[in-house]
């Protein structure tokens, strides 16, 4: 089984109210060094066999047409998952 990881982030110029809420809450727990938080999305797509270039190409197309909205978001990464980051 192969797995593709896709990271999507709000564009830098788009206000990210979720990140704003998180950065406001961090100091209440004593985390006082963080001046900004941006919150994005991570998608994990599984395939039966290996992650081939064709699988990655399809994942990239999916990322650009459905998983992100180019008006407000950037696809920052489409990659085969490292062994270390795959959850059982």
């Amino acid at each position, binding site marked *: 089984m192969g797995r593709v990881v896709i990271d999507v982030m*709000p564009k830098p110029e*788009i*206000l990210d*109210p*979720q990140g*704003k*809420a998180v950065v406001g809450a961090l100091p209440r727990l004593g985390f006082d060094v963080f001046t900004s938080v941006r919150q994005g999305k991570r998608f994990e797509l599984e395939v039966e066999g290996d992650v081939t270039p064709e699988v990655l190409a399809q994942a990239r197309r999916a990322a650009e047409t*459905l*998983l992100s*909205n180019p*008006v*407000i978001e950037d696809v920052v990464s489409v990659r085969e998952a490292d062994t270390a980051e795959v959850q059982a």
Partner: protein
Amino acid sequence: MKVGVVTFPGSLDDGDARRAVTLAGGEAVALWHADADLRGVDAVVLPGGFSYGDYLRCGAIARFAPVMTEVVRAAEGGMPVLGICNGFQVLCESHLLPGALVRNDHQKFLCKDQRLRVESTATAWTADFTAGQEITIPLKNGEGGFVADEATLDRLEGEGRVVFRYLGGNPNGSLRDIAGISNERGNVVGLMPHPEHAVEELFGPGLDGLGLFTSVLKAGLGAIA
């Protein structure tokens, strides 16, 4: 004239939208998201609520509902289509309207009577207003901030496609106080506030919302004549 109102799983203003159509003098037709059939309607309303698939982005999955293929085809052919709140989000995700709606800048869900200025009467849904008219209709949303890049905003302004603008304070961080826009042809309009909640005395802040529904009836009659 028949005005279809689409129900998606999670729609909650479809009943009000059908009632608004009826009060305006039209025939309301209930449409189901999974049916690829517009049942002979002359116009379509995508009502507010929460469509399925909002988990990804508001309207992102609803856009692929079978009925939307027909709505997009009909809209491109000139049929009047109105998207209210979640319906506005579905229209943006369908690329019938430019831009996108993002979470309110103050991070809170908002429900209030909202003053608006009617900026354009050159659409199928606003001909019964006068340009510059100020109206009050309810607003209720969590992701109502309209955003687009500068070039798109300039084009919308330059082509007179900003249809409604917020007055008395910007409720959600929408760029340039934009509350509603139209496509180039003026048959497709999306707005965040809810005109269908201001069509009856004693319900909502007044009757200012009725104008959208009476406008489309005349637009439809014009097309038929």
